[in-house]
């Protein structure tokens, strides 16, 4: 009983203190000017908190900097973080709560499933949402969520890049698509096949096969590639199989081009395949390590929190910058004006100079094509 009393008193004191504090803040910023409310939704507790918390920190760092410089359009920016523990059924509540708190923009969510569940609610409320980490291709490509943007490449971005590169740069007409039957390799190969088939006859898939990983010999597949008359091979998988296939192709005097993914964009591939690796194309994550903004953001994180930033930190940093920049350029938080600004204005971020395409995917984020030249991967400049 006594303990309960004590707790109640404590609670009252805290409440009073908070009320006083809020009153202080509200009066301090001037009552006429409403702050810009940035909702940050994602996993902030539970198993996947390590994916969600770096985004909160990124938003805090950007907002601190913006507020110190006088805010946006003369308004301060306020962060409202809400936890969805990466669960779709909770994400809908998270979204409803953020809307009831009258947020102007949403940064999040983190997981694709939770993002998808929440997007419909935001759409009905006319809110703009930007995720630093949801990679499910459907989120942008289905066209169901025109209010959704992201600063990370979709799962199919590599396949898209490889196919575009093969068709537009290498100008090949006949392509063999191979994979190693694994989740990663096969998923990529299926997208590649889909994109080639959707190219309106610009090129065709002449062979689509899975090879057995770890086999001693791939000569039958190599003969099949030759018989199909493929000008290029797109391979989804990892370097041990890729190097064997490339070596056997070259030993059978087959000059077919070889295009693969970031499972192959690995120095072990070059080490193992040796001279045969030369000329092989592979897509890989764009290198941001030389971007001074990325170094500065990382440094700011270390200074503020005393640790290295976590997952998707730079993507979230870029997303927050892009959102606030759009507000500044649009001159309001009206979502139609914001959408126009996001698609027309470029913004300098740790990920590079980015803008957004019609579907909401970031332009300038994601993967680049590399080619092995004299034993090293070199980025292909188009």
């Amino acid at each position, binding site marked *: 009983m006594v303990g309960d009393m004590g707790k109640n008193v404590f609670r009252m004191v805290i409440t009073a203190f908070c009320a006083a504090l809020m009153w202080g803040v509200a009066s301090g910023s001037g009552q006429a000017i409403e702050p810009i409310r940035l909702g940050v939704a994602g996993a902030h507790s539970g198993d996947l908190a390590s994916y969600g918390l770096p985004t909160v920190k990124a938003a805090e760092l950007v907002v601190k900097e913006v507020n110190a410089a006088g805010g946006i359009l003369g308004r301060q920016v306020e962060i409202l973080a809400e936890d969805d523990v990466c669960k779709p059924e909770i994400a809908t509540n998270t979204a409803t709560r953020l809307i009831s708190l009258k947020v102007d923009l949403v940064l999040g969510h983190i997981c694709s499933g939770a993002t998808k569940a929440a997007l419909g609610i935001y759409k009905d409320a006319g809110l703009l949402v930007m995720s630093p980490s949801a990679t499910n291709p459907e989120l942008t490509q289905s066209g169901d969520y025109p209010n959704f943007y992201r600063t990370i490449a979709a799962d199919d971005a590599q396949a898209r890049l490889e196919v575009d590169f093969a068709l537009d740069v290498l100008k090949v007409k006949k392509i063999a698509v191979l994979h190693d039957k694994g989740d990663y390799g096969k998923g990529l190969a299926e997208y590649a096949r889909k994109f080639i088939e959707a190219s309106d006859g610009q090129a065709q898939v002449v062979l689509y096969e899975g090879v*057995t990983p770890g086999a*001693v*010999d791939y000569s039958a597949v190599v*003969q099949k590639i030759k018989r199909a008359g493929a000008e290029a091979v797109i391979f989804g998988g990892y370097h*041990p199989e890729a190097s064997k296939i490339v070596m056997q192709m070259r030993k059978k*005097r087959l000059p077919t081009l070889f295009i693969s993914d970031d499972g192959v964009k690995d120095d*072990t591939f070059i080490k193992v*395949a040796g001279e*045969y690796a030369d000329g092989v194309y592979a897509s890989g994550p764009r290198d941001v390590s030389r971007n001074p903004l990325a170094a500065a953001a990382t440094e700011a994180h270390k200074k503020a929190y005393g640790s290295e930033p976590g997952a998707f930190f730079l993507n979230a940093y870029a997303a927050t910058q892009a959102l606030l920049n759009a507000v500044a350029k649009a001159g309001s938080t009206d979502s139609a004006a914001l959408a126009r600004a996001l698609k027309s204005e470029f913004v300098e971020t740790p990920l590079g100079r980015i803008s957004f395409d019609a579907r909401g995917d970031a332009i300038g984020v994601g993967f680049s094509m590399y080619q092995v030249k004299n034993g090293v991967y070199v980025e292909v400049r188009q």
Partner: protein
Amino acid sequence: MDYFLELFLGGLTRGSIYALIALGYTMVYGIIGLINFAHGEIYMLGAFTGLIVASLLTVFGLNQYAILVLASLVAMVYAAAYGYTVEKIAYRPLRQASRLSPLISAIGMSIFLQNYVRLAQTSDFLPFPALIPDLAFMEPYAHIIGSAELVILLVTAMVMLLLTAVIRFTRIGRAMRATAQDKGMAMLVGVDVNRVISITFMIGSALAALGGVLIASHIGQINFAIGFIAGIKAFTAAVLGGIGSIPGAVLGGFVLGCTESFATGYVSSDYEDVFAFGLLVLILVFRPAGILGRAAAEKV
């Protein structure tokens, strides 16, 4: 027709890779009725030894043929020592135990050797130099069959003939056959059974190492796990051809290799293993002892 020929030759070379490893399996099984699961690992050890020796000799600037021969020889001797040791540690103490015990012991040996190499060497893939040089007269046919493949094919055939001759015509061959027929009786008439079994293991291991060096220089890469899949496929080839039979292992290898090659060529490589193991089931249904195996009456 060209396509058929290419697939057929591809199947033959793949089959000869299996056969070269299968010979050791089948020999050991023929003599003591044990499936030596560590055989694939001896193959892997042979490849590693070959790589180390070849790298060393390249530093000394020897010519390519000398390196190939020396690396193979050293790998064979080294692997023979391993075979001898493995037999002595893992199988000999279990000679009188039930058939299951040495089998489990063999699996344990296989896991041990794999992880030993992983720890002592590396878990990465290592490039293996092409020790078998490209022969000039093979160049017009390179798109069908490479020099390395031709060498592997010829070596497999030679080894098969040599082994058959050893077992049929030499003194140790006769002792092997006697041991295979009846260990107790062979001992009674003065055959040193332990020595015969040791020699069998050493020969089998040396062949695996030879296979390791040749095949690795054809594939161009090795790591600690290559023995597993190669071992499984070679074991399948040995069973297919009739385990215990020397020509059977080679025939089994060819049949398996060609089946895989044609399955990939005419159907899809997605179903390569389905066809290979489907064939194994079919053959075992109609010929339980394998293609060339003799259905021996169970000794009571």
